[in-house]
């Protein structure tokens, strides 16, 4: 428990620092002993999984903290063996079916059935159901989501599902309607700086208010990242000062530079250079949608207001097509080409408009 984001992670509802009202609500739901399936969503670093653990703790007590890792092996209809790792205690099991890519349907079907079909023996002492936590539900293929649909209803007596995802937009409506959706919003900058201060006091470090706020802003309201930033700052220099440099991830800098390059010049040559950099980013395991987002952010910051809506729309369109396709580099480059095209056209129409002024 060395990284502060893990070290100071709340274990129970009482320890939570923000969105207390929601926490209270959850607590009352759980206290009644039974609850529907949950769909917990919210941006990265807002504390979804923390709340899930709190919830489980409220249900089962300390028993959920003795975790073990299990490997399951399943066979697909095409006789391919797939392996998946689950983390679980005696009372719950956490699984990430998107680990196995397009075979996630098999995992969903098999795993949930095997767990759900075994009932708890001693239901008087324990709860009558087990909890299955499925993370990254938005990355599930459509087939897997459809597979999940019926299972959810069928085995509701013996198991509860807690689904966890970043955005519900990729969860099919059928599943959304079967769950109690709970949105965990990202903490505000003030909340983050408050938490940072609390952590700093426990660690015995003086944290200037300005730095805390700067970290809060720079972390894009991602609490995990904010804590990591604070810790890396503390590693660099103690005591902390107001104008201390905050470490930025390499990939962010690299991505920003790439976007800047695209904004600077619009030639085929530039596309080629940008492509090299995109290859590099992809090779460093940066997901394509993150690249899309980073590019768009930076491009929007440096372009004409008239173009902003058009470019955003284009980006959305290309990102959507990326989901349908498979070769990320094609889609990223197509977006860059489109941007350049729009930009060039805009410039030309501006130049043409200039003529009208002189007439």
């Amino acid at each position: 428990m060395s990284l502060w984001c893990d070290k100071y992670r709340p274990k129970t509802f009482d320890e939570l620092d923000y969105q207390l009202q929601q926490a209270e609500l959850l607590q009352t739901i759980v206290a009644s002993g039974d609850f529907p399936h949950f769909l917990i969503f919210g941006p990265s670093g807002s504390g979804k999984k923390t709340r899930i653990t709190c919830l489980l703790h409220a249900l089962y007590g300390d028993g959920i903290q003795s975790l073990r890792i299990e490997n399951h092996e399943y066979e697909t209809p095409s006789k391919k063996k797939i392996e998946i790792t689950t983390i679980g205690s005696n009372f719950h099991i956490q699984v990430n079916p998107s680990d196995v890519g397009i075979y996630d349907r098999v995992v969903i079907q098999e795993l949930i059935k095997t767990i759900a079909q075994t009932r708890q023996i001693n239901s008087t002492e324990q709860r009558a159901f087990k909890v299955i936590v499925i993370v990254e539900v938005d990355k599930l293929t459509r087939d897997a989501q459809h597979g999940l649909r019926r299972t959810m209803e069928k085995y509701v007596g013996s198991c509860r599902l807690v689904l966890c995802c970043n955005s519900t937009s990729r969860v099919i409506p059928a599943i959304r309607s079967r769950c109690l959706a709970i949105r965990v919003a990202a903490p505000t900058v003030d909340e983050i700086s408050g938490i940072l201060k609390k952590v700093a006091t426990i660690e015995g470090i003086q944290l200037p208010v300005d730095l805390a706020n700067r970290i809060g802003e720079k972390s894009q309201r991602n609490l995990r990242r904010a804590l990591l930033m604070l810790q890396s700052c503390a590693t660099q220099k103690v005591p902390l000062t107001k104008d201390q440099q905050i470490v930025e991830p390499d990939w962010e800098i690299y991505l920003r530079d790439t976007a800047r390059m695209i904004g600077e010049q619009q030639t085929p040559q530039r596309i080629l250079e940008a492509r090299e950099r995109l290859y590099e980013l992809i090779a460093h395991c940066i997901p394509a949608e993150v690249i899309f987002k980073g590019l768009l952010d930076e491009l929007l910051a440096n372009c004409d207001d008239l173009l902003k809506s058009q470019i955003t729309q284009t980006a959305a369109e290309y990102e959507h097509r990326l989901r349908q396709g498979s070769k990320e580099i094609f889609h990223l480059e197509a977006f860059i080409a489109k941007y350049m095209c729009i930009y060039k056209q805009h410039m030309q129409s501006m130049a043409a408009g200039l003529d009208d002024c002189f007439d």
Partner: protein
Amino acid sequence: MFETTPNGSSIQIIDCKKRLFDEDDSIDKEKDNVENQRRNSIKKQKIIASRYHRQIPNRPFVVLTSHQNQRYYLLEREEDDDCFKLSLNDGNKRSLLKVSVEDMIETNVRQELEELTKSIDKSTADAENEDDSTLPIVDQYTDELWVEKFAPRAFCDLLSDINGLIFGNIARHEQIASNEAHKDRTHSIATVNKKVYPSDIQFELDACKRPLQKVALLCGSPGAGKTTLAHVVARHAGYNVIEMNASDDRSVELFRTRLETATQMREVLSKDYKPNCLLIDEIDGAPAPSIQLLVDLISRMPADSQQASSKTKKNNSFVLLRPVICICNDLYVPALKPLRQIALILNFPRIEPNVLAKRLLTISEQLNIQTDMITMNSLCAKATCDIRSCLHFMQFVVTHRNRAITKKMIESTVVLGVKDAQKSLFEIWTEILQVPQSKKTQLTLQLDDPLKRSGKVTLARRLELIDLVSSIGSYDRIYDGLFEHYLTLHFHDPKLTSIDYANQWLLFYDVMNKEMYTQQNYSFLRYAPYVALVFNLLFVTHRPIQMRYPQKQLDMQNKLRTNTAAIETMLNDIVPNIRQYLNKDILVLDILPYMLEILQPRLRQTNIALFTNKELRDIQTLIDVMVTFSLSYIQQRTATGENALVLEPPIDAVAYFSGSNDKRGLSFGTRQMIFKELLKERVKRNIRLKSDKQEMFVPVNRQVTPTPKPKHPSELIKLQPKAIPQNETIVARDFFAKFKLGPKNSQMTPKLPDQIDSASKPIERQALISFAYNEGFSDAVRCRIKIQDLL
């Protein structure tokens, strides 16, 4: 009409034959003339054939030598004296040429040769005679396949206009290889007793005593004449050709024996010694192990085997001293990969249609077939310059008693068909992106708007392209290549609309492709080739393009795979309490960049005891992080030969980008220190885990010390005893023992072994830890014994 009938082809042939007969009727007189001529010529040939003798006749004769070095004796006759003498002269000239062509190539007499061929072409009668003189047995058209009949027999017969370069190349290569052979030949003639193989090595001029590339790899489309070329060149360079092809069994063992016999044996029976030249035809079908064997043999260095050859030559360590020519159609067969890297690759170019047409015309003139240049040109185009199929076609037509080949016939015939030979990827890319040379004049590109170019490309051409692309089928690779190269092409597009448009098509393909493969819905496959057409319309250029195999995407994928593997191993080893909150993306995007910062605090290079509180705390967290995320350092040797400790799994490679990496990282010493501390901490934690069992300290330690990572290099393990707190006493003991032992040793040198044993025994007994690999760690090493003590 005819096409719809089930056996349309045959009907069509009959039809065209009919039409031909009609034509013949209409030009009956001419036909008669032709018939007469033919009869005459046949007669002549018969006469000539009857005049050839293999034995020395008793009448007056003239000696002729054929290309096969066979002698013929031609009887002299009174009646056709002039003509005969002319032809004789001609024949003599040619045969003379063939003998001395080796010298002639050196002095570049190819021009002369060409003049000669022209003169031969002009006088058809002579040419016919001469043809017969080279092929004395043929007197019927159907006797032999024309492919065989008209195959070039000598170096100067080859269509040198195009192949000049390649021949020069091969000839040079062969020359180098054959240098020794020629000299060797003269030597072996001069001094019979001299051993052949050592002399070979002596006479080689090259650095590795052989030409650098010992193998020539000829590749090209079928029917281009690769095999013929190889035969001619090898024979021309003075070799005895031994051919292996797909008809032979090519298992590894047989391959080896054949290789050895071909390269090491020599003909005993023939009088003049010719070195062998191995010709491996159709090597693209050979099994990979056989090719690997060939490569091994080729790349074997002569140095080690030179000794072997002087002693024994049995233990199959022979050096390849003879040239090997390999022939393949498809250069990119996976099995050929090792060979590709060491061979001299000669890409057989496509023959220019008009050159081939000219040659075909010459042949038809010789055979008295009525045709013209345009017909021949269209024949070449239809057969895609496949010499073999051109000749087959001509023979086919002529044996059906048509003495004329017309353009109509070629166009209507199905015999030839449009060849569905697969083109290589490179050819397809060139076809898509480059304006064909012959059509340069037809297609003028509109420079302003690439999107309006489409009108300039005819429908036929578009369909042809689509056929071409779909014939290969592996769209993925085609489009990867196009994608990688289209931006490097020269095109004028200030608004970049064409790039946008092309990209949209690529995306369309990608989406379609995924749909096809995930849903098994292959009905979309038929739309796949259109992307190539779009690229053709947008980016086709007059300039020659330099295509390379698309490599970048593969590189990226490989890199991604290693990085993903690193992340996954890390993820798998994290303790479950933390792991439940993590996934791959969170790890890469959020945690790693900061964690590496935490893992590399600013530390001074001093002893750990002198660290400030802050530094100590940093190290404490660092160790903590490394243990919980089960990271470690492993020793590696860098490219420069230094030892370095690198993170295992190599997550820093994932998080750091090459451009922005300003040499962050800890020094070797610090890392070593951290590593030691890390091991210590691991031991402590293990003890804590097992402390409930109340085991003795010693076994725990014994168990633990090898566990951290059994695969550590031994140097690292040696460091462990220092790290374990117990060890301090041992070190101290050592320290004292050294002082105590020093004088003792100097006094009692004769009993040295016993003394050391007895001195070290108590230490061993008291030491609670013993390491299997730490034998050398005892005082035996630490004690300084001077030489004078031993004397």
